[in-house]
């Protein structure tokens, strides 16, 4: 019996961000996500505390799906990030951390939300315009004539998730497979509108990673008994296939409510089976060679088909039905192996991310420099722009010079903290005064400008410390400088061991982060239903 309860008045809370609780929870979420970020990120064990499966992960999709947040501000944030991940797969942690940083940084300033939102929007468009422009020095055009950049992109995504538990050899193997799988989904005779095919990930848990493989076409599981009967298939040309998505198990169709009276001696099951046999005879007379059924085929019908040399495979499952209808187009199966369930789950998520990143790269054929370099370079660019050309902003956005400086600093330091989050073992981060790239060094070095033991390469791997560069600590006050724009040609060529990020995903992540931060800062009250 249903019970009706009188509606209780909703609770309205003003200024949800100002309470101590909100600040602590936002900081906790930021700390949690920051600790997962990057190839040296720490893992989280997710489980329900009651003997359920344990997942060890640092993947935002897995984390946010299992992280039940109660505070409305955090709910807004995680919902936005999950939405981004659903659309782009990559850059979930980037988006979430940047958003947390922005909210925390701006909140401290105590400016009015409207000013903050307006200026944040301005800074965001400054970033996106730069990233999309030809002079942008932190993006590389993708050359589809070679595998170098694409492989580097895939490898960077794989290495960013340590819970996959891959060694270097295995990363190379899986990267190659992912690229192969991606290439197999590109139709051969591409016209104006390319419709990419599908790659189906087939689980093979418990096996060695190195045994993973890619096969063109769809892999269907068939019992060994059946297989021995099927093989060898002699007929190779004009192989007729019939695909059924309805059950052929001999079920009676829905008899509706009430009781059905059947005369003694009449068997509805046999009647249904007779119908199936009629179907079978039709298939035989149509010279069908292979019958595939999403659901169950009645064993007697299967037996009938078998005696007429028709291969019958049932219980294909709904997930294979869509690619099956495309089987003549481009479908491939990626047989993914890993030693145990936990590592396999993480590897699967990561492979999906990588495949998605490759697909996005087709649409926008660029990659961004990874390893923190894009962030630090953007920071240098923004600082320089707002310091040297503030007039137009001040006029358009109707704000004071101080306000602009404060917001720019908050925005830049949010990006810098994000880049700094790549460090988990107590190291120090520097930026150079020429390219504005990210350099990682050991902590507690004497603060001279020219250290003897500087890292040999920057975070993305594009530049080496051989040239005369000047360095400063990240997050330390320094003079704005114009970072060198326009990538040199030799730089584009040396993409062999670069750390790269997906252009589309990162750009969207940046937008989502800034917009969500603005939304959160703009919240003036939260109305909650109590029942």
């Amino acid at each position, binding site marked *: 019996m249903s019970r009706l309860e009188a509606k209780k008045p909703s609770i309205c809370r003003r200024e949800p961000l100002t309470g101590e609780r909100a600040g602590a929870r936002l900081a906790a979420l930021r700390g949690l996500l920051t600790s997962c970020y990057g190839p040296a990120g720490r893992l989280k064990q997710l489980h329900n505390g009651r003997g359920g499966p344990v997942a060890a992960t640092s993947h935002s999709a897995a984390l946010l799906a299992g992280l039940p947040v109660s505070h409305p501000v955090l709910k807004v944030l995680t919902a936005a990030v999950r939405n981004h991940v659903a659309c782009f797969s990559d850059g979930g942690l980037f988006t979430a951390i940047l958003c947390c940083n922005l909210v925390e940084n701006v909140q401290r300033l105590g400016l009015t939300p409207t000013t903050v939102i307006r200026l944040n929007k301005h800074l965001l468009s400054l970033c996106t315009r730069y990233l999309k422009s030809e002079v942008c020095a932190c993006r590389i055009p993708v050359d589809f004539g070679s595998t170098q950049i694409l492989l580097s992109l895939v490898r960077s995504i794989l290495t960013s998730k340590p819970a996959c538990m891959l*060694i270097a050899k295995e990363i190379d193997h899986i990267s190659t497979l992912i690229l192969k799988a991606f290439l197999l989904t590109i139709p051969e005779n591409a016209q104006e509108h390319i419709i990419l095919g599908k790659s189906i990930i087939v689980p093979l848990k418990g096996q060695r990673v190195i045994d993973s493989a890619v096969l063109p076409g769809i892999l269907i599981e068939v019992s060994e008994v059946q297989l021995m009967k099927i093989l060898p298939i002699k007929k190779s040309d004009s192989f007729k296939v019939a695909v059924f998505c309805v059950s052929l198990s001999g079920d009676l169709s829905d008899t509706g409510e009430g009781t059905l009276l059947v005369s003694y001696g009449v068997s509805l099951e046999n009647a249904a089976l007779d119908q199936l046999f009629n179907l079978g005879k039709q298939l035989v007379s149509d010279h069908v060679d292979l019958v595939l059924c999403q659901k*169950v085929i009645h064993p007697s019908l299967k037996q009938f088909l078998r005696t007429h040399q028709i291969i019958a495979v049932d219980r294909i499952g709904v997930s294979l039905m869509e690619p099956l209808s495309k089987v003549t187009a481009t479908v491939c199966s990626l047989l993914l192996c890993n030693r145990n369930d936990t590592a396999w789950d993480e590897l699967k998520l990561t492979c999906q991310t990588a495949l998605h990143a490759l697909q996005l790269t087709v649409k926008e054929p660029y990659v961004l420099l990874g390893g923190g370099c894009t962030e630090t370079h953007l920071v240098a660019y923004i600082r320089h722009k707002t310091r040297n050309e503030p007039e137009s902003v001040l006029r358009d956005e109707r704000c004071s010079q101080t306000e602009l400086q404060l917001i720019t600093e908050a925005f830049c330091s949010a990006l810098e903290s994000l880049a700094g989050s790549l460090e988990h073992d107590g190291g120090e981060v520097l930026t150079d005064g020429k390219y504005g790239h990210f350099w990682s060094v050991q902590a507690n070095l004497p603060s001279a400008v020219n250290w003897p033991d500087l890292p040999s390469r920057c975070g993305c791997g594009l530049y080496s410390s051989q040239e005369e560069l000047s360095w400063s600590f990240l997050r330390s006050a320094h003079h704005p400088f114009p970072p060198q724009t326009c990538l040199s040609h030799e730089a584009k060529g040396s993409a062999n061991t670069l750390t790269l990020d997906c252009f589309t995903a990162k750009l969207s992540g940046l937008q989502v982060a800034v917009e969500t931060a603005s939304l959160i800062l703009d919240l003036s009250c939260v109305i909650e239903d109590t029942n």
Partner: protein
Amino acid sequence: MDCRVINKRRHTGLQQLSSFAETGRTFLGPVKSSKFIIDEECHESVLISSAVRLLESLDLTSAVGQLLSEAIQAQNKTYRTGTSTLLFLVGAWSSAAEECLHLGVPISLIVSVMSEGLNSCIEEVESLQVPVHSVYDHIDSTETFSGLSVSLDPSLHIPSGTGLVQKEHDLKDVASQSLAFCRLSGRPVKSPQLFRLQARFEADENTSQTPQTLKNNLLADTCCRKSVLTHSRHFSRTDRHQWISKPGELLEQLSAAAPKTYRCSDLAELEVGLSHGDPSSMRLVAEAVRLQHQNAGMRRGGHTVLFPFDISRIFTCCLPGLPDSLSCVCPGYITVLSMSSATLIKELQNQPVRVVLVEGDLTENYRHLGFNKPTNIKTVSESVKVQQDSSEELWTDHVLQVLIKFNVNLVLARGNVSEGLAEKCTDSKRLVIGSVPESVLQAFAEASGAVQVAYITHMNENCVGSGVSVTTWRSVTSDTVDGISRMTVVLKTEGINLVTVVLTSPVTAQMQTKEDRFWTCASRLYYALKEQKVFPGGGAVELLCLTHLQSLAGQSVNKGNQDCSGWLHNTSSWLASSAALYRPTVLKSLADGWHRYLSTLLRNTAVYSSDSEAATSIQCHLQNAADSGSPSSYILNEYSKLNSVILNSGISDKLEPIPRVYDVVTPKIEAWRRALDLVLLVLQTDSEIITGLAHTQKSSQESEGFLFL
């Protein structure tokens, strides 16, 4: 809705791992002490002697415990061997990782250096691999080592022509004696020596030599093999990569000098080497292989080009309450039936019978998977004639008619069998057996020409198989279980690719252990034959790992292996440049894990009575290996000299030759990888997130260390 984030659990995870692993320490090595696990609530106890069963019985509700359990299960599911090694190394390496943390090594560096170190070890031990080639060359002549199969027990009713191979197990069986909690009975590898020599003796008999000359040859072979070995130029080579890279050439060279040193071409030798202190289980496996091989020969008309040992066609039948000596291997399917079928079986005994295979239950209500039976259908009778028969009876009659029509006397069903039908069939001289495993049905389908059916009432002549013989094996009075007398029957057809291993044990509690051990032995042999390579056993591989890591730790990082884990090798992080500082420390900790493994192995095999003795011995060998310039050659050399536990210098003065001990390659290496992966996974975990909607309010004391979102 609350989520609890438990922070600062960095070290407790590793500590949990090492304490879980400690419980399985005694399972390492050939002599395994069993454990009783007692449930304090219901006073039930289980006897276990393997890591898998141990973890099954332990209450592992913590997240780390579950991950450990998952890792062990995955190893067991894939390889059925190597779980004790896995469990032990998890413990050893989690202590090692913890030690590194205490010394202030950054976590990311521990992860990448340990990963690199193990990887380098795995590459290094490739040089120790022993190729397994043409082991079946002698198999036909050995006739399942008749020299060993003494007399058949006259008390057994073995019908002639069933081809049973019955052995009297007069050899000392370590496995059966391991019930004692502490067993220090000396070398467990001693007994199989007879087994091996006998097999070799028979193997060579085929080459038309008189037994006398052969015996001399054998002795001579054993003697000069050693001398050839020690002085062989191949052992003084320091550049081992040269001969690894060209295996063909190597074999050629070796065949001139010491042909039997680096390869294993004798199946019996391989079996003894892989028995790991459990000769009785391995003997059963050996017989199963020979039966399968004979069968394969029959099916292909004598041409056994490539014979794969197929463990999916081996079936175990456990008969608790019978003496150990009754364990045996038979072609066909052996199963236990109630005594009430005795007369029926006697009648079916002397004729080939026709068979039907049912892939599901054999009951009136059974419908195939995916069929939904509507519940709202009612049958009405139009006439006033009263229907006496229930639908169940009608169905039974129908089935019986079909069986009579096709002259079928034997029905094997995958699932349950309706009792009424079984009774009626018995009355009409038809035997119905339920709960038959899938692989057994498949074997009968292949051998008898039958096609599995879902509904017996829908079958036709094409589905019937023929030529199955039904014979009694022996009666089993199992009053220990429920007081019902039972009997066992053998079902088989000409050339059926199915072997039943009957496992017996007077102690019911040991039955599970016995079955597990049989499968472990079978898997070891399976992988050795499949991969065509084995490792020298007895700690040789681990000793090389230990030496290798020690020398790596001594090298400068530039010279070191560039094949780091994951990201460090092409990263620009400061960690890459400061790795040199911490590398020796981490590698040493990893090596300490191997050291613990070796000394526990030595302690468990009762070679040494104290850890310090074991440590001294290991140290001595390490020194020698380092001094020799080529540790792998030194180890192979020692291995060939001693043949058994490599570090067992205490017994080398006895002249009695000891058979080689072998180990499987991939399952072992995978166990190492899984162990380290688990340790590193836990090491890199910094918090636990408890998900779900549980509204359990924690008291303020409990919620310490929790974060709420």
